[in-house]
C-alpha cells in the first residue's frame, strides 16, 4: 500500500463480517473500521497481514477504556465484602456464584452464599449443591420475599464474621418494571444492614446473547449501579463482541469469563485473548 492508500471494498466487507459475526454490532463495527481507515491512511505502507494487528489494537483500546481491576484484589478491602449477582434468565448467575465461592475459598476466605432466588423451581437446591462443591456455607430461602431472606442473611454475615457474601438473585427481564423494583428493594435492604454494601453489583451476561446485551446492561445499570461484568458460556463458539459497546457505555471492569460448567471454569478476563478470539 502507498501512503494515503485505502483497502478495496471486498477487504472492508470481510473485516466488517469478522466484527459483525463476533456480535460487535453495526455502529461499533463501523466506528472501528473508520478508525482503522484513518490509521491506514496515515501509515507509510500497510501489509495485509498487519491489518489484523491494527484491528486488534483498535478493539483492545476500546476494551481498556474503562476502570480496570481484578475482583480478587478488591474482595479483601471490606469485611464482609458483599457481592450481588444480577442478570436476565439463564445467563449463569447461580453457576458463577458456585465458581466464585470455590475461587475465594481456595484463597483462604470465608464465604457465605445467599440463595435469594425464591421464585424459580429448585433454585435454592441448585445453589445448595454448589455450596457443597465449594465447601462453603449457605443461607437457604424458604420461599417468599427475597428481601426478607437477605435481611436475615446480612445479620448472619456480620455476626459470623464472613469475608465474602455472594447473593444469588432470580433471573429477571430488564423490561419488567416490578422485577427491577424488587431488585432495587433487595439492594436497599443490603445497604441498610451493612455500611457500604453491596460492595459489588455484578451483571452476568450470556456470551451467546446478541445486541440485546447492551440493552440489558443499560437497564440494569439504571436500576442499580453496576460495578462489574461477568460473561459466561464463551467455551462455545460465540465471541461475546457486544462487550465492546457495553464497555463504551458503562466502563466497568469485566471481571471474569465463564468457560464451562465445572467449579474451575472461570478465568480472569483478558482483553488480548478476548480480541484474538474475535479476529481469528
Amino acid at each position: 500500500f502507498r501512503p494515503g492508500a485505502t483497502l478495496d471494498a471486498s477487504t472492508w466487507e470481510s473485516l466488517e463480517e469478522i466484527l459483525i459475526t463476533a456480535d460487535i454490532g453495526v455502529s461499533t463495527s463501523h466506528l472501528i473500521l473508520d478508525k482503522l481507515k484513518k490509521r491506514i491512511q496515515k501509515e507509510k505502507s500497510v501489509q495485509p497481514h498487519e491489518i489484523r494487528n491494527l484491528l486488534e489494537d483498535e478493539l483492545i483500546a476500546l476494551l481498556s477504556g474503562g476502570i480496570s481491576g481484578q475482583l480478587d484484589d478488591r474482595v479483601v478491602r471490606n469485611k464482609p465484602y458483599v457481592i450481588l449477582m444480577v442478570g436476565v434468565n439463564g445467563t449463569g448467575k447461580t453457576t458463577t456464584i458456585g465458581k466464585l465461592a470455590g475461587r475465594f475459598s481456595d484463597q483462604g476466605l470465608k464465604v457465605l452464599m445467599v440463595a435469594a432466588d425464591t421464585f424459580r423451581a429448585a433454585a435454592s437446591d441448585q445453589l445448595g449443591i454448589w455450596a457443597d462443591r465449594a465447601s462453603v456455607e449457605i443461607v437457604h430461602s424458604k420461599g417468599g420475599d427475597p428481601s426478607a431472606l437477605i435481611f436475615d442473611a446480612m445479620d448472619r454475615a456480620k455476626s459470623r464474621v464472613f469475608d465474602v457474601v455472594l447473593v444469588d438473585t432470580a433471573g429477571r427481564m430488564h423490561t419488567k418494571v416490578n422485577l427491577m423494583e424488587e431488585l432495587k428493594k433487595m439492594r436497599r435492604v443490603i445497604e441498610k444492614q451493612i455500611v457500604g454494601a453491596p460492595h459489588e453489583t455484578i451483571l452476568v451476561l450470556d456470551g451467546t446473547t446478541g445486541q440485546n446485551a447492551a440493552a440489558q446492561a443499560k437497564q440494569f445499570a439504571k436500576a442499580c449501579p453496576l460495578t462489574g461484568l461477568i460473561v459466561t458460556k464463551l467455551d462455545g463458539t460465540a465471541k461475546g463482541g457486544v462487550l465492546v459497546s457495553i464497555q463504551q457505555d458503562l466502563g466497568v471492569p469485566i471481571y471474569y469469563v465463564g468457560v464451562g460448567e465445572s467449579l474451575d471454569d472461570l478465568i480472569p478476563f483478558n482483553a488480548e485473548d478476548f480480541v484474538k478470539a474475535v479476529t481469528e
Partner: protein
Amino acid sequence: DLSNKFTLAFKKLAGRSSINEKNITDALRDIRLALLEADVHFSVVKSFIDKATEKALGQEVLRSVSPGEQLVKIVHDELIETLGGEHAPLQHAAIPPTVIMMVGLQGSGKTTLTGKLAHQLIKKGRKPLLVAADVYRPAAAEQLKTLGRQLEIPTFSAEEAGSQDPVKICFDSITYARQHGRDVALLDTAGRLHIDDDLMKELETIKAKIKPQEILFVADGMTGQDAVNTAKEFVGRLDFHGVVLTKMDGDARGGAALSIRSITGKPIKYLGTGEKLDLLEEFHPERMASRILG
C-alpha cells in the same frame, strides 16, 4: 434506533416523484443495517437482501405511485415468507406414547418449556409424563419434579430408572408411560454445546433408540450471530422437527428466528413469552417479521 433506520429508508423513497435503481439499493442498504442490528446473521442478511433486491428491481417499484410503500411490502412479505407459513403443530404417534424431546444450549429454557408443553397437553385432555434426562445440572431433576408437582403429573427421573444414564432414563420412561397410561412423554435433556461431541452423540443415541415424534430445538430468543452455528450443528446431527424461541417477552428483536429458520429450513413452532407455565404462544410469522424490522 432500529425502527428509525427502517422508516428513514422508506421516507427517502416516499418523498420522491420518481426513483431509480440507486434509490432502491440505498434503501435496501439501510434495511440491511436494520436486520444486522436485529441480530440476524451476516450471511443470512446478505442472501435476504439479494433476494429482496432482485424482487424490488424486477417489480413495479420503479414505476409505482408509492415506491416506498411498495418496497416495504416486498421486504415485509419476503420476511414473512422466509420465516415460514402457517403454524406447524406437534406430531403425534399412532400408538402412544407420543415422544417429544427438548434439545439445545445451556440455559435456553428447555426445562421450563417441558413444563409449558405439559400444561398445554393437559388442557387438551392428554396425560403427559415429564422425563428428567438431565443428570448433569445440579438439581435438574428436582426442578422438573417441582414443575410436575405444580401440574399434578408424574416425573420420571434417574431415581425411578435406577440409572444415571440419560439414554436408559429416556428408554425406560417409555415403558413407564405405557404402564401408567401416560400418552405423551416429554424428554427434558441437559443443555450442551453443539461442539461437545460426546454430548451431541448422547442425543443421537437417544434419538436412535427412542425415535421421538418431535425433536424441538429450544433456542434463546436473544441469541446473536452464534445462532447460525448452533442451529447448523443441531440440525445436522439430529434433523430436529421444529424450533422454539424462548424469552421473547424481553425486548430482543429476535433476528435469531430468521437465522435459524433460514439455515435449517425447520419451522418455528412456538415462542416462550415468560417464566410461568401458561406463557407459550404459537409462532406467527407476521408478528415476528414486524418485530425484527422494528
